[in-house]
């Protein structure tokens, strides 16, 4: 059994409530930080922990915090990114629904470290029922003196609000999220300036993923160095993995970084193997944006070493033979899966979610979807495959925000590893294989 830092008490009856959460040691990090540590000391522990952003990019959280402009006389903000929308990812929802107080606790401790007096949790609008859960938890925290004026009798005060979005994947991009929080369209901003200098209301702002903020709780409780002992190299601590697709036990699992991918897929503790006794065909390991890998490359690197659940091991081999840990959205496909169709659902998604601000993404994502649609409807042409590769290449790296890359990588990788299937589609197929899609 791996250690559980975030989900340790997940099965405790009533853990959603303040009382039970507190009995289980909840809010200790707030007490420790506010009463015995300076904000800088809290930040220092997060740096020592080696915690990396859990939203997908994997940027060191402590370093991100240290960029916040402390010379500015404007208020500082901490905004929690709960706009979890990356296909295959549902860990933040699970955490907020079942242990809402760990997020509230993490928000208080982190806001203290950053010197924020007002903080927001920006949550995707579709999770509206969780807004209620979080607001209830926040009410409890106010009532118990963990939020509001002079928390625990110290001179630190904090207000915390939940702010719902209204359906837009792009708002998971931190500057689009800030635009949305300001009541605008979720168009990503041009950078620089970065949010640490000019974020919400042009004030210094840090935007962190739900899981990142929750991880601050065990880091402060046990110290950054202890946290860093878990994991391998620069992949420290535990990570929530959202497992879905053709497995026996879909769900959210907290793993110690470093777990072999093979163990994660096949052991009873985690995914429990491929459903219906079938064989594994491919895995998208870190949410829809990351490159898809066929069985041989997801279980072992190109060098033949076992692939591990770490940032480094998953990206071993670059995009030629590797992928990324991303958000930890682990989508498993069995041997019957039509890779082209699966890709089509991704491309349709990115087309639907492109904000439309910059031309390569606005036009390119639509083009990718249309070509895949044509391929799947027996109207494909051989040149379509090359156009897909070329168009993806011309979107990648040339857009305002990473959505362009996110739309391009799945296309490039699916064709790289499963080109034959695309050629079969282009050559025309038995009608029944496509009936299912043709109806939409």
């Amino acid at each position: 059994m791996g250690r559980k830092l975030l989900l340790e008490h997940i099965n405790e009856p009533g853990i959603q409530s303040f009382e039970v959460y507190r009995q289980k040691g909840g809010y200790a990090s707030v007490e420790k930080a506010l009463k015995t540590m300076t904000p800088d000391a809290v930040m220092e522990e997060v740096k020592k922990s080696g915690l990396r952003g859990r939203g997908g990019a994997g940027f060191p959280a402590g370093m991100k915090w240290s960029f916040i402009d402390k010379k500015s006389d404007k208020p500082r903000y901490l905004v929690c990114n709960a706009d979890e929308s990356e296909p295959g990812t549902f860990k933040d929802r699970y955490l907020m629904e079942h242990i809402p107080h760990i997020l509230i606790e993490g928000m208080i401790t982190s806001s203290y470290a950053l010197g924020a007096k007002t903080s927001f949790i920006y949550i995707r609008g579709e999770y509206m029922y969780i807004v209620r859960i979080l607001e209830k938890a926040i009410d409890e925290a106010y009532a118990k003196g963990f939020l509001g004026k002079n928390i625990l009798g110290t001179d630190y005060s904090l207000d915390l609000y939940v702010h719902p979005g209204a359906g837009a994947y792009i708002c998971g991009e931190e500057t689009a999220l800030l635009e949305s929080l300001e009541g605008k369209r979720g168009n990503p901003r041009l950078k620089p300036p970065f949010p640490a200098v000019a974020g919400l209301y042009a004030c210094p702002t840090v935007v962190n993923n739900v899981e990142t903020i929750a991880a601050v709780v065990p880091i402060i409780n046990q110290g950054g160095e202890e946290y860093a002992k878990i994991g391998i190299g620069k992949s420290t601590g535990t990570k929530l993995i959202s497992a879905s697709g053709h497995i026996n036990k879909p769900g959210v699992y907290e793993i110690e970084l470093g777990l072999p991918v093979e163990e994660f897929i096949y052991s009873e503790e985690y995914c429990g193997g491929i459903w219906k006794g079938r064989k594994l065909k491919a895995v998208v390991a870190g949410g829809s944006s990351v490159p898809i890998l066929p069985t041989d490359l997801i279980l072992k690197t190109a060098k033949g070493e076992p692939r591990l659940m770490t940032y480094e091991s998953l990206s071993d081999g670059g995009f030629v033979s590797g992928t990324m840990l991303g958000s930890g959205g682990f989508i498993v496909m069995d041997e019957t899966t039509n890779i082209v169709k699966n890709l089509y659902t991704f491309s349709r998604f990115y087309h639907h979610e492109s904000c439309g601000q910059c031309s390569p993404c606005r036009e390119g994502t639509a083009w990718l979807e249309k070509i895949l649609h044509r391929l799947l409807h027996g109207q494909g042409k051989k040149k379509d495959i090359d156009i897909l590769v070329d168009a993806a290449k011309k979107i990648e790296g040339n857009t305002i925000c990473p959505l362009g890359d996110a739309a391009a990588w799945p296309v490039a990788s699916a064709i790289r590893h499963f080109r034959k299937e695309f050629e079969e589609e282009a050559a025309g197929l038995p009608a029944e294989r496509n009936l299912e899609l043709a109806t939409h």
Partner: protein
Amino acid sequence: MTENNTIAFSPDTLAVAKKIIARYPEDQQKSALIPILHLAQAEFNGWLSPEAMDYVASILNIKPIEVYEVVTFYSMFNTKPVGKCLLEVCQTSSCWLRGSNEIIDHLKKKLNIGVGETTADGMFTLKTVECLGSCGTAPMLQCGADFHENLTIEKVDSLLEKLRSKNERSTYLKSLNVNG
């Protein structure tokens, strides 16, 4: 501008709206736009007419175009009337891998409508949506604030029955309980 509007929040909703506005700095009231649009959509029969949007603009003291721009950007806001129950079926990868297409097909047959259409009795509107973060419990559909997960044909049938007998408008906001 408001005198021509026949549309307005109930006193209770207006009080909630004011509470939401108060969360944000004084010169940043526009921040409350999306939460208030959710209130408006819930209060004004599940969609946002130009009148409803103009009303929201007047509450926040912003230009109507700023509201139109936002409403048309986000997929949860309806700019046309929808049925009492809006069935939003996820169709992205993880749901597709576990049979969302069969669910969509079944709903189309059962309700005798296409995607984007509303049943003749105005009860159901069928919509396909992109990933709702329910991949581990796929396939799924959202109706109002509720996630209906691990769907099977049988589960869908009993859900339709239940919704029909309840005969209530689905809404993302279940109760107007706002802290702050």
